[in-house]
């Protein structure tokens, strides 16, 4: 049942009509990130009558968000963004089905979260996660409406739309630890994500309705300070698509990854090529556990050490009984690391294995 009164102003557009409004109602859109970009995306999609919306965000509202994340107010500080955003969407439009995922989008939960959606909106703030989104979306052949920000500039594009190019086609991933700053580090004027998020919402609506020309194979660069826009064309890169497809398929097909490792799983993982195994105990703690991938970084030094690592780096943590390594794992996951494990019950549980 379409609420004609509510949507009349958009339904009288010949490009939309009742058919279009029904398409909006049937659509299933996943918004990953409920921050600067996510807020305007969610407001606009809810208002337009998109019927099913998922919200993914592991963060809580902070005062420094309020200058740009307009779904939130002072009383929300300390509360889960995904939950507050869900409530805000429901207030705007009670007929929307909203699911809030109060967790960060990671390799561990990607397959499960992605399942029910037809369009992904990338409103994240970390490049590692953008590659993760790319890979899962390429494997599932789902379009991704992308935007990103740097100070007064922004980028918008739509990936994987009708066989179009992907994020990796545009920005092939470099190995190495190049740092790309986000809004916390470089700063941002509040209006900017609001503008870009609205561009994203516009593309989502165009995709659902099948109207206009979607920004596929085109990167829009918006400069707010000088009010300039550029559109840069880019093509599919078969190697990049293949890489995304392989990564994504591996992720989707593997059984739910158990991040609390049994002794056996731990020992196997320690031998994995390229893994980093970190002993978070104090340097003098025993028994020692040595191996070619094993390093000792006491818990209090982990934060600094982790800044040198690529967020895609797979990491295994351990300590005496599992408590410190659990805390370390939670910290690294919150920081955006996508493949983190720990020895569930600590070195003590290995006694019979070594």
């Amino acid at each position: 049942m379409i609420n004609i009164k509510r949507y009349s102003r958009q339904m009288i557009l010949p490009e939309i009509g009742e058919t279009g409004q029904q398409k909006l109602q049937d659509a299933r859109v996943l918004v990953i990130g409920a921050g600067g970009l996510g807020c305007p995306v969610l407001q606009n999609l809810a208002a337009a009558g998109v019927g099913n919306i998922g919200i993914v965000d592991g963060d809580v509202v902070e005062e420094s968000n309020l200058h740009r994340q307009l779904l939130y107010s002072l009383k929300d500080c300390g509360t889960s963004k995904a939950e507050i955003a869900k409530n805000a969407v429901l207030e705007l439009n009670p007929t929307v089905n909203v699911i809030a995922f109060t967790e960060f989008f990671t390799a561990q939960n990607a397959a499960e979260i992605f399942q029910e959606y037809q369009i992904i909106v990338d409103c994240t703030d970390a490049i590692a996660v953008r590659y993760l989104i790319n890979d899962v979306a390429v494997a599932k052949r789902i379009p991704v409406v992308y935007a990103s920000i740097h100070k007064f500039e922004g980028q918008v594009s739509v990936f994987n739309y009708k066989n179009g190019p992907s994020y990796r086609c545009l920005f092939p991933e470099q190995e190495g630890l190049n740092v790309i700053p986000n809004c916390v580090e470089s700063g941002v004027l509040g209006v900017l994500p609001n503008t870009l998020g609205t561009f994203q919402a516009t593309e989502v609506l165009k995709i659902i309705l099948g109207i206009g020309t979607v920004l596929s194979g085109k990167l829009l660069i918006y400069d707010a300070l000088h009010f300039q826009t550029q559109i840069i064309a880019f093509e599919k890169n078969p190697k990049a698509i293949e890489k995304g497809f392989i990564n994504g398929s591996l992720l989707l097909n593997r059984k739910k990854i158990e991040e609390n490792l049994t002794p056996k799983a731990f020992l196997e993982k320690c031998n994995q090529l390229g893994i980093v195994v970190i002993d978070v105990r104090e340097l003098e703690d025993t028994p020692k556990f040595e191996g070619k991938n094993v390093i000792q970084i006491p818990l209090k030094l982990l934060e600094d050490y982790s800044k040198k690592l690529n967020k895609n780096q797979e990491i295994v943590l351990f300590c005496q009984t599992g408590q410190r390594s659990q805390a370390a794992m939670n910290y690294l996951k919150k920081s955006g690391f996508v493949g983190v494990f720990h020895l569930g019950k600590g070195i003590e549980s290995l006694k019979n294995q070594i």
Partner: protein
Amino acid sequence: MTITLKYFGLLADITHLKEEQLTFDEETIPVSVLKSKIENRYQMMQNTTYSIAVNQAMSGLQTAIKDQDEIAFLPPFAGG
């Protein structure tokens, strides 16, 4: 040849410029050669990741650049 170079995001922070025009003796050079020249000029660019577009289209390292072309240096942005 004389070409226009445009810098975005982090790269504009490094060069302190949004745009500049440069003249080279050569009539044409491949993107790879321009990349080296610019990274020599702005050393901090050497540790960054970016794609290069010629006349509003993303190009590979072999694409030939000629007089009056517009080259954009495009890093991925992270923020959201």
